[in-house]
């Protein structure tokens, strides 16, 4: 009985020691954690706009100005954007 109480006590102490650690462990650790060491890595993982080649095109964003330019240069207007936004802004 005494031995059982001792082990229960030890378990409680151990639980007391490790519970806060376990709570903290809910967040990612090491390389999966955002830190000064992993900052650039995650920037590169998230920033992927380089695949969007249309961003290099000379866009107009104002219909009135686009019309004036098209009339002046004798060119048609191509529109790019829908109800979900414009892929140069919200994608």
């Amino acid at each position: 009985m005494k031995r059982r109480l001792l082990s229960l006590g030890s378990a409680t102490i151990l639980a007391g020691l490790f519970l806060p650690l376990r709570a903290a462990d809910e967040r990612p650790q090491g390389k999966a954690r955002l830190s000064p060491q992993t900052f650039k890595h995650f920037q590169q993982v998230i920033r992927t706009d380089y695949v969007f080649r249309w961003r290099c095109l000379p866009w107009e964003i104002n219909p009135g100005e686009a019309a004036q330019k098209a009339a002046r240069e004798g060119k048609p207007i191509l529109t790019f954007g829908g109800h979900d936004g414009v892929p140069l802004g919200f994608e």
Partner: protein
Amino acid sequence: MSTRERASRSLDKETVELLKTQYVLLAYPWGYGKVMTAGGKVILPQLDGHGPANGSFDPARLRKALALFRQLPQTARQPRVEDLPAEWRKAGYPTPPKGGLVLKLHGRAFGLDDGGKAHPFAGADGPMLDFFWMTEAEVKALVPPSPRKGDSFAMPNWFARRLRGYRMNTEALAGPLAGRVLSRHSEKTSTLTLSVEEVSAGEVHLGLHGSLPLRFAAWDVQNRRVPEGDYDCEFEFLGYLTYDRGKERFTRFDLVALGAVKRLGSFKRPKPEAGALTNGITFELSNGTVVESIPPYSLRNSQAQDYFSHEEP
């Protein structure tokens, strides 16, 4: 590969040249791939499809539109200024606040394993891009008038309020399960903190850290067991800001936010190929070009006074 990635990759050098020299390109939500004259006559209608429809930059279609355009009389191809649609002059986007700040945001959902490796998440619709606007007063409020190394202060609440309205928070995760961010997390609050890391006569270096808990409610979820929300995403922030005291503007504003998505109740969502489902956002200064002056999506779809409001709901 997402639809928009496919559309982007269809742009070869020759097509880029064709677009640059033969077209006026209008980034405006009037439809994908619609070709029209300066006077508003439609030459080719917009393409069907959700998102940047494939075919917007199809060279054969672009050449066909040019051939049709050239058959039009000169007056249609080059109308007089007074013949241009008057309503177009009133159209256009709001412009960034004078003296304020424009940040460019990228968002992406992915699986994150214990080694820090990112894995694809098929439920998401590819990377997202948006902008974050601040007024001049908001920018100035981020820099203490007499900064001392080691000082720290809470990031103003309007930052979290504004970010909660961002569609990329949900769309990056969404796929077929769109959701919305609740205006307030019922259990946690933001701990975002700015710290003064270095001060010199010319510059103030600030660090941003802390967390921003967001709670989401999904649309059309059956058998809900958590009426207050369906999943949590507590973003951990880390950032480096540099303020030029002479020019009175930020010259660096690099932030990264990573949030592990935690399911509540019975809500189910697709899993990434490996690792834990994670939503990531980066922030950086925009380059000031025309295309980076497009307003934030949540501003275009609400009133400016709501977007810039500091009032907590």
